[in-house]
């Protein structure tokens, strides 16, 4: 039981040590490495303790701070500590000597502390306390990296504080309704609550979590916020930070409210709460994914996809079937693995070339093959093509949607996938393929400490793709523990009555196909490698002075088709809200005119108004 307190205390210790040694980067990085290694170990060996409960004897409003270990939060704890460890390993070199890195590890620890607290908490109040710590440290994470980061972090803050306040209202409303903060107690009393109130409460919670997990239309803080900070933080934030919102949604939909309660919340006919939620998820998949097409910055492109991929997780959860929920939860892990892999690859390129601008890069495959491979694995996962892991979870989701009778949500998922394929190809093409600019001629592959996390993640991405059962075992247990039907899984696929999935066979046939092709390939004469200037140029010659490349406005024609539909409603609404707030506050300020005579009149007016109102009251 002490493992939970050890986990939390160790992270706090990490914060403390990093604050103390804020001057020495070397000390900081080794402390962080060691502590995160221990944390990862601890969260792995936490497994036998699943089901146990733990309290810190400290009262807030008559409530102990309670923690519990369930399969669900074990799953998330593993992801958090694992990915943080990899981020730290990657950062060892990456962050060295960068401006503004003094508190790099401190905020990382603080953020981890908040996230671990959120997922391990067993009652609403503890959840909220850690949620707040998490939001503030996310803000701190986003703020590192200069003026644009400050601005976008500010935007995040506005959303996050709104989310926090909504969550606070929900937390306290449910306390006054149920008389307890404890998840289990609330779950037990849920049936006694009237349906409109249940719907109201659930909407409050889901709205709050939706903001944190960047669901359309409250997603706009994410792309800038994630892409303006350090690239390693981009990876960390996209990989796990946003997904704590998903954790909240899973916990409240299935753990606290229960799927039976949620399904009672009908609106009209087949349209129920889940369906409405699914529509938002569908929009989350489509709109941000196609916005990603327009990006010229690798980090921003991935950040937009990070929004879009959240839609897949949510739509899986919204489908309500065992397969869909499993797909949603599995996609959290898969997305984390491949998105971090992708961003690490981008970070490697940034580390060597100093830019992530897609219009300035190109041809780096010759110089950085490992990073290229990492990016390739990542984008195949992201696009959801076999045999990588992204395919498996997306397959669950598509299938759940089709068989559950949600054709339009399913097509939204397909549209999202197509948009993803298009933009990830642009990503890999503009960075690694095409012509290598002369200025990158002496670029080298990154060192071992940066390659290691990439190799690990490549193995994870491919491994989970071929053997999804590795994770499905835990997910099935989570489903059972949440009172859902478990998905019938096998080590390398799924067991279902009609239309099965066996990733091992798919991969084996693929490899077989490649082998056959290789034989055919060998039948021909030997190929000869030539340089990039030895190229067809319509009969002309090429040399380094000729920019013979196609990467700017890669999808101009498609953009031309989509443009009329991009009304930027969200942006304009946000700007509208901001200017209304400004105007309101500007008018309210004007109450204080500076004229003492008016002030006196206010007093008498207040007096008269009070009398008039109170006369009615008494």
């Amino acid at each position: 039981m002490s493992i939970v307190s050890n986990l939390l205390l160790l992270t706090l210790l990490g914060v403390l040590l990093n604050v103390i040694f804020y001057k020495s980067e070397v000390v900081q990085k080794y402390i962080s490495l060691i502590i995160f290694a221990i944390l990862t170990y601890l969260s792995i060996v936490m497994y036998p303790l699943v089901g146990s409960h733990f309290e810190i004897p400290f009262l807030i409003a008559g409530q102990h701070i309670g923690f519990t270990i369930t399969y669900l939060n074990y799953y998330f704890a593993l992801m958090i500590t694992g990915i943080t460890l990899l981020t730290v390993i990657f950062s060892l070199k990456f962050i060295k000597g960068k401006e503004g890195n003094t508190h790099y590890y401190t905020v990382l620890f603080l953020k981890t502390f908040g996230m671990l607290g959120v997922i391990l908490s067993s009652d609403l109040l503890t959840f909220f306390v850690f949620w707040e710590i998490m939001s503030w440290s996310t803000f701190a994470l986003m703020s590192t990296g200069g003026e644009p980061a400050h601005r976008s972090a500010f935007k995040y803050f506005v959303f996050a504080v709104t989310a926090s306040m909504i969550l606070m209202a929900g937390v306290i409303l449910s306390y006054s309704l149920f008389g307890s903060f404890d998840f289990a107690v609330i779950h037990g009393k849920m049936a006694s609550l009237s349906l409109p109130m249940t719907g109201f409460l659930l909407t409050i919670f889901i709205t709050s979590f939706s903001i944190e997990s960047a669901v359309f239309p409250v997603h706009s803080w994410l792309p800038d916020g994630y892409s303006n900070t350090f690239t390693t933080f981009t990876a960390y934030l996209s990989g796990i930070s946003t997904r704590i919102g998903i954790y909240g949604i899973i916990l409240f939909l299935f753990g606290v409210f229960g799927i039976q309660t949620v399904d009672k919340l009908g609106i009209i006919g087949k349209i129920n709460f889940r369906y409405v939620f699914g529509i938002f998820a569908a929009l989350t998949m489509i709109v941000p994914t196609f916005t990603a097409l327009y990006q010229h910055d690798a980090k921003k492109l991935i950040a937009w996809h990070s929004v879009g991929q959240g839609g897949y997780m949510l739509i899986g959860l919204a489908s309500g079937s065992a397969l869909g929920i499993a797909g949603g939860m599995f996609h959290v892990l898969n997305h984390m693995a491949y998105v971090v892999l992708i961003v690490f690859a981008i970070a490697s390129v940034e580390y060597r070339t100093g830019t992530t601008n897609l219009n300035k890069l190109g041809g780096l495959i010759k110089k950085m093959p490992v990073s290229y491979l990492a990016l390739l694995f990542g984008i195949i996962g992201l696009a959801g093509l076999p045999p990588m892991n992204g395919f498996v979870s997306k397959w669950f989701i598509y299938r759940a949607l089709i068989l559950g009778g949600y054709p339009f949500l399913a097509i939204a998922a397909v549209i999202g996938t197509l948009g993803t394929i298009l933009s990830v190809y642009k990503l890999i093409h503009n960075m690694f393929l095409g012509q290598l600019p002369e200025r990158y001629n002496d670029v080298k592959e990154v060192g071992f400490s940066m390659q290691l996390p990439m190799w690990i993640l490549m193995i994870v991405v491919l491994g989970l793709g071929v053997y999804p059962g590795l994770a499905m075992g835990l997910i099935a247990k989570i489903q059972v523990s949440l009172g859902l039907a478990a998905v019938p899984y096998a080590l390398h696929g799924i067991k279902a009555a009609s239309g099965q999935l066996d990733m091992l066979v798919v991969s084996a046939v693929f490899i077989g196909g490649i082998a056959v092709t290789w034989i055919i390939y060998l039948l021909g004469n030997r190929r000869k490698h030539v340089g990039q200037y030895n190229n067809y140029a319509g009969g002309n010659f090429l040399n380094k002075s000729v920019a013979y490349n196609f990467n700017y406005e890669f999808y101009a024609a498609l953009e031309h088709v989509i443009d009329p539909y991009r009304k930027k409603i969200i942006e304009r609404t946000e700007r509208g809200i901001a200017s209304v707030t400004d105007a309101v506050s500007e008018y309210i300020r004007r109450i204080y005119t500076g004229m003492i005579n008016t002030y006196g009149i206010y007093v008498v007016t207040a007096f008269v108004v009070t009398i008039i109102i109170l006369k009615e009251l008494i």
Partner: protein
Amino acid sequence: MNGILSVSTVLNTASAGLIVLGLYIVFTQKNLIKMVIGLDLADTGVNVLLVSTGYIKGNTAPIFSKAGLQVSQMVDPVPQALVLTSIVIGFGVSALALALIIRLYQKTGTLDTSKIRGLKW
């Protein structure tokens, strides 16, 4: 005294009139000195009101000026004590106000409240 005009009615009316007049001056006059005068007027009105609360018809001042004067023949002494305190305070506030206004005048060169709006919004 008989009829409508009892002493307390007169006093109450007078005090209400003074207070309203004083506040009216404060709200309408732009000269700070005049505002202070208005405040003083209102203050006086309140003091009249205070005194009137202790008035008992037909009784004398609460001073043992004549032998054999009973307490029951006197008006309530407490409000008189209160009024004394209140007058002193009022005096102090007026003096302070005028002092501050003088300093303000030295800094700004005007007594017009519509021009003394360095602090607003």
